[in-house]
């Protein structure tokens, strides 16, 4: 059981705000931390890791990590941290990266097995791909057998295929080690697949929390598809207007009326929705 009740004044780029978090996390829970950038997610992780100080209390099981009298340094907290940019030790091989945390060859080779990295154990990080690096980082974070694993947008720098693969591996590790995990993520599908609970931050406070399904499914109940995207271009084709909209990684063409075309400016964020239809679903043919 992890109890967090902290306060910290933040001086953001825009304006000052107060990070004020009151949260308790069950042992073994997989918590996703979501919210727009600048809402305090990373700061919260850094406070939990002991990189930044704050007022309040953090207790993990019976151990006090932070209160008025004590502030445990990062070295004394049983945490693992997965950084967005991997932060591997470039002067050490994959195996040495793991053993640097703890001299436990059995655990290291077990972790490398789970993540299919055994064959790469003598390679140096700068010869690995992004996905491989992040798997090494994940193994390294697990080496200390942490009570709490913190992940700061661990998969955001990877392509979607690699992301899916790593999500499965994170799930496998979570299942095996029962580690409590807090992960910062912006990706709804990632949160849905991995997390058992999602907490949404805004301006330093929790504005929403619950099961990913309840929080993320915006259109539950209505037969409506709705996507927001960026308007890239409006073309006039004969008598009709065609808008090109970027939704996620995809570009779509939509026919719009002349009035609609007048009211839109290129670069706008637009909402694209459709109602009363029967969606068709089939497995996608991989294009790569």
């Amino acid at each position: 059981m992890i109890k967090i009740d902290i306060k910290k004044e933040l001086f953001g780029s825009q304006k000052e705000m107060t990070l004020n978090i009151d949260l308790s996390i069950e042992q073994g829970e997989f918590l996703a931390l979501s919210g727009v950038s600048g809402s305090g997610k990373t700061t919260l992780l850094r406070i939990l890791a002991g990189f930044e100080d704050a007022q309040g209390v953090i207790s993990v099981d019976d151990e006090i990590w932070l209160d008025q009298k004590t502030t445990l340094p990062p070295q004394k907290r049983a945490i693992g941290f997965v950084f967005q940019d991997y932060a591997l030790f470039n002067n050490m091989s994959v195996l040495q990266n793991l053993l640097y945390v703890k001299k436990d060859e059995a655990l290291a080779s077990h972790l490398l097995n789970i993540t299919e990295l055994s064959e790469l154990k003598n390679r140096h990080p700068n010869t690995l791909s992004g996905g491989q690096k992040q798997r090494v980082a994940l193994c390294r974070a697990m080496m200390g057998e942490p009570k709490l694993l913190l992940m700061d947008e661990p998969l955001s720098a990877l392509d979607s295929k690699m992301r899916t693969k790593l999500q499965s591996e994170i799930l496998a590790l979570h299942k095996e080690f029962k580690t409590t995990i807090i992960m910062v993520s912006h990706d709804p599908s990632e949160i849905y697949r991995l997390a058992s609970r999602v907490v949404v931050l805004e301006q330093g406070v929790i504005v929403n929390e619950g099961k990913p399904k309840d929080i993320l499914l915006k259109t539950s109940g209505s037969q409506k598809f709705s996507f927001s995207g960026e308007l890239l271009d409006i073309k006039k084709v004969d008598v009709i207007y065609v808008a090109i909209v970027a939704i996620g990684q995809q570009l779509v063409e939509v026919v719009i009326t002349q009035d609609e075309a007048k009211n839109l400016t290129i670069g706008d964020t637009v909402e694209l929705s459709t109602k009363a239809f029967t969606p068709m679903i089939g497995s996608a043919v991989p294009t790569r």
Partner: protein
Amino acid sequence: MLEALSTLELTPFVLSFKLAGLTTFILFILCLPFAWWLSQTTSKTKPIFEAITALPLVLPPSVLGFYILIILSHNSPVGAFFDEYFGIKLVFNFSGLVIASCFYSLPFMVQPLQSGFASINKNMLEASYIAGKSKTQTVLRVALPNMKPAVMTAIIVSFAHTVGEFGVVLMLGGSIPGETKVASVAIYEMVEIMDYTNAHIYSAIMLIISFLVLLSVYIFNQKNRAIGQFR
């Protein structure tokens, strides 16, 4: 010419390199924690320390030498203290030269190390702290091995710069053969007594050594950068 080469007095060179080696060693040990602190601190006093560190770059060596001379002479508290308790005189001998050289070459050690430390990914250092490692362990096992070009530059340039010093050495050490008469001072004296043959030989040796030292640094750093680009 050949005759001059065979009777060449090498003591000034030996002295120069002994001085440079000792100075570089002492500076490396002392500057490591200082450069680390400078690279990590957010303290408002940091610019003051940075300015003091850079002073030897802009001060005339005579000014630097003059102040060091005043501070270390047996009339000053510092000089008197060493003389009285350890029986060591700090001016016009080799130990005085070492102290003066440490001040003179300070920026050449601190600045490359500081920028080397600053270039290390902060997350990498934090990952080491999370692994339970102290700051000292982190510096020795993570930071330093990942900034080899900076360490190399700091050591080589400090060494070369100490070999090349003249003004401070002359003021602090005078020109005592075998004690404080380093190569640069020896050349100065040769020119003064118009012994151009030996001055030529000495100067050529200095020129070639200095060039080779700098060349080796740039070759090393180019190789390392090539590896860096591969990442």
